[in-house]
């Protein structure tokens, strides 16, 4: 019954007109950037973060969360209609969604995607509410040693499940941790790594790092490659699903929701992993796998449910443990810090309105998306006809103004440009920027917990392996690395990410 009281509190916060409005703005903006290629949720959240200073913290977080799950809806629309995923998490939807559209079933594919996402969103909301309380109670028992080990596990898990070279990803984490400790040390008051620059004594802003690495670097590489985009949108006739299609789709939706909810919980999980995994599962359990890639409705329903469920449940580790598991959640940490909220288990008790309001707003936002999106598909498709040469300068403008307004300082703009340059270099060398961002937001917390744990143990590092919870987490992290390093599994992992 407690759960219902909490949800009731959540509704009372999420349904105030102002928060409804921000949920709407967030999910619409999310859909927009989901439709547009070349700008993802991380860069968008970085862009909008400065404008949320004046808002109530809960309104700000509701809007920023809406961007993430809204992007899942928008990404699937373009995947189905023009075979171009706006977001990586909807890349698999292209496989069968576009084929359905070519067969004249675009309406059915879109409706399936929207309804599957909505169903998954509803289940995930309840799932978050149910899991959060026990998890945060567990987390409240954690001491600094446990927290340090949890962060190690979280960071390692995040790179194991991500794509690309494991060694480089770990090196990127360490680079991020180093960038995270730039600025004045809270314990000694010493300004570290400030290179004699006054502005750096306050530390590097998360907005600059994210916008540079994800926004600017992306635009620059797009400009270098100058890919030609075909824009042959299929006609959408009637958004209805036949009885047979419904029958074929719903088990896939259930499986996708379950799989996505679970994968969203894991470090490194979230929307993208969930959709890829769900597609693989659907192909395996299908009676006729040869239909996949030729317009199988299960290939749309499963991954679409999974990516939305995964997007939402990836909030669980953030809200209960204070650990971001992917780059978008790292931005949410940044947003919470700006509003003076320390992410972690204490949020639920000290700020229940914010916690439950945010969770319920996700359900409300999903409902808005399903109602608003289907009629708006025409508008989104129109937007795609805007050429990239006009689009990217506009994105740059919003980025530049956004980052300038943080402190009204041109230094912040130059700093962001510096990270843009670094981002281009990283992309050329095939170093994924997401682990760096995770390390960056966790850096100060990790150092603080390491210091405290070592102080309590009087300098004895064995504390990390003599405390059972901490030891288990470190063992899990080591196990993950060993398992991934085995040649056999490494090949499987590479295959899994190439299935497109």
């Amino acid at each position, binding site marked *: 019954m407690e759960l219902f009281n909490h949800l009731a509190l959540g509704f009372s916060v999420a349904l105030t007109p102002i928060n409804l409005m921000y949920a709407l703005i967030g999910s619409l903006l999310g859909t927009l950037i989901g439709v547009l290629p070349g700008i993802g949720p991380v860069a968008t959240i970085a862009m909008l973060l400065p404008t949320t200073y004046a808002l109530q913290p809960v309104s700000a977080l509701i809007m920023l969360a809406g961007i993430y799950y809204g992007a899942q809806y928008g990404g699937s629309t373009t995947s189905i209609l023009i075979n171009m995923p706006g977001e990586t998490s909807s890349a698999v939807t292209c496989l069968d969604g576009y084929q359905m559209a070519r067969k004249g079933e675009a309406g059915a594919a879109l409706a399936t995607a929207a309804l599957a996402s909505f169903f998954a969103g509803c289940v995930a909301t309840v799932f978050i509410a149910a899991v959060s309380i026990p998890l945060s109670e567990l987390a409240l028992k954690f001491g600094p040693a446990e927290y340090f080990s949890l962060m190690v596990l979280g960071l390692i898990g995040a790179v194991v499940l991500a794509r690309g070279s494991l060694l480089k990803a770990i*090196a990127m984490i360490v680079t991020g*941790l180093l960038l995270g400790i730039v600025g004045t040390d809270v314990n000694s008051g010493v300004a570290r790594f400030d*290179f004699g620059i006054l502005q750096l004594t306050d530390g590097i802003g998360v907005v600059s790092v994210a916008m540079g690495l994800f926004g600017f670097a992306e635009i620059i590489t797009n400009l270098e490659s100058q890919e030609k985009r075909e824009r042959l949108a299929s006609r959408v006739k009637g958004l209805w699903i036949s009885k047979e299609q419904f029958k074929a789709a719903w088990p896939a939706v259930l499986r996708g929701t379950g799989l996505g909810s679970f994968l969203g919980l894991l470090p490194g999980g979230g929307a993208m992993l969930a959709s890829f995994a769900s597609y693989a599962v659907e192909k395996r359990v299908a009676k006729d796998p040869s239909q996949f890639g030729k317009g199988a409705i299960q290939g749309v329903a499963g991954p679409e449910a999974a990516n939305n469920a995964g997007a939402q449940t990836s909030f669980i580790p953030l809200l209960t443990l204070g650990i971001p598991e992917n780059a978008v959640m790292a931005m949410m940490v940044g947003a919470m810090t700006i509003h003076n909220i320390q992410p972690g288990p204490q949020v639920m008790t000290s700020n229940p309105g914010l916690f439950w309001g945010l969770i319920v707003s996700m359900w409300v936002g999903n409902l808005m998306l399903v109602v608003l999106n289907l009629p708006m598909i025409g508008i989104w498709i129109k937007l795609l006809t805007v050429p990239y040469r*006009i689009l990217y300068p506009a994105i740059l403008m919003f980025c530049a103004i956004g980052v300038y307004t943080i402190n009204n300082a041109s230094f912040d703009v130059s700093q*962001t440009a510096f990270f843009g340059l670094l981002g*281009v*270099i990283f992309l050329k*060398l095939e170093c994924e920027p997401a682990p760096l961002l995770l390390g960056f937001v966790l850096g100060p917390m990790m150092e603080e917990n390491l210091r405290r744990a070592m102080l309590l143990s009087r300098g004895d590092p064995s504390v990390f392996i003599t405390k059972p919870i901490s030891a288990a987490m470190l063992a899990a992290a080591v196990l993950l690395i060993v398992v991934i390093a085995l040649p056999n599994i490494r090949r499987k992992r590479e295959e899994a990410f190439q299935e497109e």
Partner: protein
Amino acid sequence: MRVRNPKDFWAGVLFILFGTVAIVIGSRYNLGTAARMGPGYFPRILGILLILLGGIIAMRGLRLDGAPLPAWRWRPTLVVLGSVVIFGLIVTTVGMAISVVILIMMASSASSEFRPKEALLSGVLLATLAVGVFVIGLKLQVPIWPAFLQS
């Protein structure tokens, strides 16, 4: 010795460089003891870790084959980042309206499909939007026009 996988090799070199910077600059900060860590302790650990990781990555780049470095066309990088930096430098003195037009014009020229008239039109429209949303709507402390035009 031949570099077989330049992407890995240079990534490794870059990480070694970062680690070295961390250790060299970090050596100015008090290390403290394991029980009472000073501001230099954690950076030292990270620096050593980064040099080790970078070393392994660079070694692998020498021994395992890989794709060559992709070409780097400097223009988009310079023009895009330059336009943003210039915007940041001039916006308080020149005002939002003109800075946005300059930003859009300059950034647009990075594209191989650059059309000056179209970019100017887009710049003027976006400048109007930016002034409306950010200066008038969100009340940013940024002038709309240059100081000498205002009494």
